[in-house]
């Protein structure tokens, strides 16, 4: 016999793996669009720290002169991104899965401890149930960023028909910049996410495909296994039992 823990519901796994290629298409086609007018840079005084993007970058990725193609892909796959996102948020809310995701007041302190632990500056990580504080903050934020991308996207897609939204976001030019910054955020998230998943190992990764993870009582990465008991309800804010995961 093996003890398994059901970690990711089937729906969440579908939403996750649909989102991955769709978001990739959105970012790639977005880059084709951005190339046609690419004014953004990070500048300190006269010194350009980072230019979005250097010609060599565009050339290496074969970006130039593909605006029409980029718009076509962007305006088709946006619907898949939106639909998948709506279903994900609705499912997360209705199923109660949000309880694993939404950060609480302890999450920020925990996140700090997790970062210290990951950097080797702390011996133990704080106990957690499904996601640690840092994960909760990261995954919840990236969900909010998805909503932000849709809103800023529509603000630049229909700036006359939905002018109130464009105005609310600071105007047409501001909304375009916001849309871009959010995209950079997704790319940064992606790199950190992939590194962390690689660090967490195969069992964690495969649980996003199979949904379950075999419990190893002696896993040093996971605090000691406990019998399944309902979490105390009298004092919900006290640290929970060491995590099963």
């Amino acid at each position, binding site marked *: 016999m093996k003890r398994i823990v059901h970690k990711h519901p089937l729906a969440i796994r579908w939403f996750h793996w649909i989102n991955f290629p769709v978001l990739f298409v959105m970012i790639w086609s977005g880059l084709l669009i951005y190339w*046609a*007018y690419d004014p953004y840079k990070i500048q300190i005084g006269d010194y350009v720290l980072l230019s979005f993007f250097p010609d060599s970058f565009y050339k290496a990725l074969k970006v130039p002169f593909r605006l029409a193609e980029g718009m076509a892909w962007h305006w088709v796959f946006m619907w898949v991104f939106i639909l998948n996102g709506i279903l994900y948020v609705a499912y997360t809310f209705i199923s109660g899965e949000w309880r694993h995701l*939404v950060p609480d007041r302890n999450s920020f302190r925990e996140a700090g401890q997790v970062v210290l632990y990951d950097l080797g500056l702390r011996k133990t990580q704080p106990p957690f149930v499904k996601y640690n504080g840092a994960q909760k903050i990261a995954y919840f934020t990236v969900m909010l960023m998805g909503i932000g991308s849709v809103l800023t996207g529509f603000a630049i897609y229909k700036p006359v028909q939905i002018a109130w939204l*464009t105005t609310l976001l600071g105007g047409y030019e501001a909304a375009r910049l916001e849309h871009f910054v959010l995209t950079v955020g997704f790319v940064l998230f992606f790199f950190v996410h992939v590194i962390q998943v690689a660090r967490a190992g195969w069992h964690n990764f495969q649980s996003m495909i*199979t949904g379950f993870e075999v419990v190893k009582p002696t896993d040093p990465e996971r605090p000691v296994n406990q019998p399944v008991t309902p979490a105390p*309800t009298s004092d919900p804010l006290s640290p*929970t039992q060491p995590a099963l995961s």
Partner: protein
Amino acid sequence: MSQSTEPNLPEEDVPESVTRRKTLISFGVFALAAAGSTGLYKYIADSKNAMGVKRPLRLVMNENEAIAKTYFSNAHLVPTFDPKQAARPARVNGYEGIKKPVADDWQLQVDRPNAEPLLLSMDAIKALPKHEITYEFKCIEGWSQKQHWAGARLSDFLAAYKLGTRSGNAPNPDQPDDLFRHVGMETPDKGYYVGIDIESALHPQTLLAYENNGQPINAQHGAPLRLIIPVKYGVKNLKRIGRIFFSDERPRDFWAERGYDYYVGL
């Protein structure tokens, strides 16, 4: 934030054969889904082009037009600004259709069903009420600029000359079936041409413009008469209008033929 307790994850004791089977099935479905999405990409990428863009993408973009029309409204106006904020001079981008000087005997030709084409001078346009607008002109490339334009409303023009309808009456909002579905415009040399849905053409901010920053439009901006249509990207704002016509079919469109969305409604 959340005050609720995070529940523990459900656990179960199962035989190893079960975990093995579950794993196998999950990875099998995962592989199938990956193959399916790769197949979808290949299907799109290997499709024939429809006007310069992959056919499946073109079909969805045309559906996007239908969706956009459900919330298009003449009451939705482009935000306007003080003319003092307008760029001087307004940015010039593109010379298709206006590479040679405009003819001295320029006239606006308007084709009508069952009637001789109308031939009009600038005086005829200027006789209509003049409207000014300062708004953010938006290029499909992504840049935008506050620009100040003035001219006659296209809707006033169509009403005054009883154009755009099958009956030969002035356009009547209560009789949408009487309207042709599109307006076509082209430069005198036919080097640049656009097609515009009739709803966008009748939008109150759509102008037959003859002034920029209070001066007659210069040659680069499409003298003597150009289209200013804030509900569209710049590509539809045809310069130096030579001919206007109406049709139910989509009139040919310079950039749509080159892979861009036909509607490009903002």
